[in-house]
Structure formats: C-alpha cells, structure tokens
C-alpha cells in the first residue's frame, strides 16, 4: 500500500521511539533486576494464612547486614504487624505479603513499592530505604467500606 513520503518518515520515527522504550524497559527488567513485583510464583492457602509460615509470625527479621525481611498480612482493613516496623537508614527490605481475605493493594508513598496482594498468592518486592522518614504504607485497591482507613507506616531512621 502506498504511503505518503512524510507519513513513512513519521511512522518510522514513531515505531523507532516505541522500540527504544521497549528495549530500555526490557534491558532494565531482565538484566538489571528491575522487573515488576512478584517475579516468582508462590502460593498459599488463603483460608489458612494465620497458621502458615511465615505469616503465622508477621514482622521484621534481619537476614543480613542492612538486609531485612518484612513479612506482612493484609486484611480488611489493616496490616499485620499492627505496630509500625522500624529499620535503619540504608537498609534493604524484602516485603513478603499476602492477604487473608480480599484483594488489597500495598503501596509505599514516595517509592516504587506498589503491588497487588491477591488471595492464594504471595507478593514480594524489595526496596532500599536511602532516606530517613516515616513512610506511609496504604492499601490502594478497593477492598470494602473501610478501605480508606487501611494503612500503616514504616519508620526509617
């Protein structure tokens, strides 16, 4: 089919632009460790969350120098552990989260930590907290009448 000379140039530019975006995203995801959350598939029985490790003991565990694991459970309408966790500045935290009821969101405002928590599934994401502060963790997926109250914090000092 015949294309006007200028349309050919426009489409070449447009397709190249999209290809560059995809290449950048692909390289960052697959060789620089910046994939979307929950890369590995782990399941859990959603009706037995409170009895199954590690969710039978939600909270912070230190697993290395400046490296922590934060095991959390989302429920309508809060997060376990109820008390905000505290980590030192510069720590890398691996968040391991599931839900004991409906789908929830897990977002730490001001960071790229933003993932869905789906019953039967374990979600995971890691973040290094370079700046001190009290970070707001909120549910950003509608989960019922108390959705707007569903939040906690994590303190970095």
């Amino acid at each position, binding site marked *: *089919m*015949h*294309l*006007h000379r200028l*349309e050919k140039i*426009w*489409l070449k530019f*447009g*397709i190249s632009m*999209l290809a560059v*975006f*995809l290449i950048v*995203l*692909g390289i*960052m*995801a*697959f060789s620089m460790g*910046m*994939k*979307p*959350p*929950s*890369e590995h*598939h782990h*399941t*859990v*029985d*959603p*009706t037995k969350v409170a009895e199954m490790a590690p969710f039978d003991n939600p909270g912070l565990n230190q697993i290395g120098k400046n490296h922590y694991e934060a095991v959390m459970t989302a429920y*309508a309408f809060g997060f376990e552990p109820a008390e905000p966790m505290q980590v030192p500045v510069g720590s890398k935290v691996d968040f391991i989260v599931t839900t004991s*009821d*409906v*789908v929830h*969101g897990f*977002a730490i*405002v*001001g960071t*790229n930590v*933003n*993932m*869905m*928590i*789906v*019953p*039967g*599934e374990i979600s*995971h994401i890691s973040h290094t907290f370079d700046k001190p502060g*009290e970070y*707001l963790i*909120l*549910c*950003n*997926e*509608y*989960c*019922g*009448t108390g*959705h*707007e*109250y569903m939040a906690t914090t994590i303190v970095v000092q």
Partner: protein
Amino acid sequence: MKSFDRSDSKLVLAHILFAFAALLIGGVAGLLQSMVKSGSIELPANIGYYELLTAHGVLMALIFTTYFIVGFLYSGVSHTLGGKLLPASRKFGWAGYMLMSLGTVMGVIVILLGKASVLYTFYAPMKASPWFYIALALVVVGSWLSGFGIFYQYVRWKRGNKGKLSPLFAYMSVVTMLLWQICTIGVAIEVVVQLIPWSFGWVDTVNVVLSRTLFWYFGHPLVYFWLLPAYICWYVVIPKVIGGKIFSDSLARLSFMLFLLFSIPVGFHHQLMEPGISPFWKYLQVVLTFMVIIPSLMTAFSMFATFELYGRSKGAKGTFGWVKKLPWKDVRFFAPFMGMLIFIPAGAGGIINASNQMNAVVHNTLWVTGHFHITVATSVALTFFGILYWLIPAITGRVLTPRMNKLGIIQTITWCVGMFFMSGAMHIVGLLGSPRRTAYNSYNDHPDAVLWMPYHVAMAIGGTILFIGVILIICNIVGLLRAPRGETEYPIGEVSEASEKTPAFLERWGVWIGIAVALILFAYTIPLIDMIRDTVPSPGYVTW
C-alpha cells in the same frame, strides 16, 4: 435528499436517550464523590461512597458508552447500507435494547440497595449479590444481539453488491462489533461460569487470578470499543462536516484491522503489579500493547492531513495556515476536534501506563483516574456530544439552529475547562501517590496525605464544572429534539481523488479474524494453563 427511515430513527433515538439518562445519574454520583473527597460534604448514613462509585463506573463506562455506540453505529449502517435497516436487523436491534435495559435496571437497583458495592470491575473474591452478575450478563448478551443486527445487514449488503467495496462507516462498524464480540467472551465466561454459581453458593471457591485475567482480557479491548466509534466520526464524518475529503480509505481500514488484531492480546498491562503472572508474559503483552499504538499514530497523521489538504484547497499557505481555515465556530467540528486534541496527552499517558515496570509509579493512583477521564470521558465523550448536533436533526427531520450551535460550543468549552481542572489535578496528585477508588481520609494527617488535599479540592471544582456540563448537554438534547423541522443530511465523507484504490485483502474477514485469534492464543494460552493449574481458589467475602 432521502430522509432517515422513521422506524430506524426510533431505534437510534431510544439508544441515545437511554445513554444520556445514564450519563445524568452517573454524573450526580460523580459530583457527590468529588465533594466527599474534597472534604466538602459527608454522605448521609444510608448512602455509601463505594455504592455511588459502583453506580458511577457502571453507568458511565458500561451503559452510557455501549448504548450511544450501538445507536450511532445502527444509524450509520442504516444510512450507508441501503438507506434502511432490514426487518431482521431492526428486530435484533430492539431485542438487544430490551435485554440490555432489563439488565441495566436490575443492576442499578441491586447496586443502590447496597448489595453490589464491588465497583464496575467487580473483583473477586468480593462477592456481590448473584442478581448483580445476572444483570451484567443480560447487558452483555443483549449487546451481542445488537451486534448480530449489524453483522446481518452487512452480510446481506455484501451479497447484493458482489465485488463492491463496502461503505467505510459500515466496514468500521463491523470491525467494532467484531472486536466487542470476541472480547466479551472473556467477561462472559468469568461471570457465567465462575461468579454466578459461586455467588449463589453452588460452589464454595473462585480462582481469583483467573477471574481477574478473564476480566482484563475484556477490559482492555473495552476501551477500543469506546474509541473506535469516535474514530469512525473522525475518519468518516468530520471530513464531510468541514467540507473536505477523506485522506485515505485504505489506511483508514488498515488502522481498524490493526486495532482488531492488537487490542485484545494485551490485558496483562492492567495486571503488571500482580502476582501469579510471570515477568516474561507481562513483558510480551507489553510489546503487543505497543503495537496497538501504531494505528493511532496513523490516525493522527490522517486527521492532520485531512485538515491541511482542506485548508490548502481554500488557499491557505505556509506550514500552519490551514489551521485558520477550519470551521472553529461549528460545534459539529469543534467538539470532536477538542476530543482529538485531548487525545494527545491521553494517549501519552496510556503509553506510560503500559510501560512494564514503570507502571509502579502510577498503578492504582489517581493518575489512572485522570487518564481515563481524558480518554473515554473527554476524547470519546466530546466526540459523541459533537455527533448529536447533526445526528438528532438528521434522524428526526429537524435542523441545527445557530442558537443550538452556540449552546453546543458553550457546553464543549465548559466540559474542557472542568476536565482540565479535574483531570489535571488527578494526574499530578496521582504522581504524588494519592490512591484511586478511595473515600475521604487524611491518613492521620500524614504529611504526604496532607499534601494531596488541595488537589482533591481542585478535583471537586473541576467535577462541579463538569456536572454543569452534564446538565448543559441534557438541555441541548432537549433543544435539539424541539428544533425547527427541516432536512439535515447525514454527513458521510467522500474519499479524496489522490487516495489509492483500496485493496481487497482488507475485507478478507476470515484471514484477519484468524490472525486475531492466533495472537490471543499465543499471548494467553500458557499463562492461563499456569493459572488454572497452580492457583489456590478463595472463598467469597462481603466487606461492605
């Protein structure tokens, strides 16, 4: 000039009026939502924010859109494929209307009774009343009947006009309803096979990851179901309205075929932040998503080319002289043009949303809400509003008066101003982290949340202006229905002489549908097998 068939006119008008009744009720809900979020009002105890939000989403995104689209498509199919609908087509049209309306009324009642505060995406394992899911199923099956009427008229025309190229409006209508038919299969399976039995209690659990995947298999092409009718207006009607010609018939048809191919195997870009889908398949569907941007890049070129060639034919010189020649004071051009213009930031936002890991910046924030308010609620809606100013006169034997035209321009500007404040604020506050689908809360006056408040106020100001815009369009419809009698031509563009002959392969439906199905199987088979095999199902919950 032959006037529009009277029986067909009733069918089209029924769809338009139902659509705008839905817009009005949905608009009231939207206004109340914006006022709650800005802290201006508290709802009385018996009305829930999330009930209103469910009604708003269903009425605006499913009912207003589908009814207007079916009505508009039937009008063009009637006009271009023989001047009137065949009896069977009209019967399909009415059967679809009845079934959809039964479903809509049932659904709205169940929602307002508080038994389905699950939002228009109704994510499991939140469990609504089975009558909500039945209502949705009725709307979807009704829309299938509506599609059959269009297919039937097209097939009969092709038989009676062997070897002839089908009229562009009808061709594009068939692509639109074909897209709808293929993509609604996903949500129909979710609702009928998974959710209704579970909601009635006949099965105890539901596979949540699978249900979400079936929904988004439908949910992305849904937005192209909204967009393609607007593109029909831009490609076929606008050239006639301005007095120009269609830039290229074959490129217009090719763009629609590319939409058929690439709008469906891409649902994962709405699920990028979820567990249960591998990074490989997420990225693959992101690549397919980027393919669907190409027909929109083609459309942008075609639109500007149509305008420039028209302007130059009227003596315009220089790179942008043609801009001044366009009929800015004609609402039948101005409203759809504003839709086109706003599609630039709308599409740019969409590319960002689909960008794999970058989605983390915007997922479930008000940025997403800002995005879909400029796509469907502006680009598409303003185009639909602009269509009314010739469609209602054409089908009712009336004329557009200068006064109605002026009121149309005012309504269009009102809408743009309101949306600028509301969606502009939503985009910014979304980047700052403010969550979507969330009622009023200050999060214990956390400093991040306090920062969001002024934007929520700006959203309420925009929302109020938009509500005025809703009232204005309703008034304008009343005005058009009472306009003086006369003849209004149904504007169908002619193709420019410079456009090449359209190749026949663009109408080899079997080939194109085959490729579309192959792409869907490629993008979904393995992930679906994993989901069915490896997930643990969940019981239902009523959390409202």
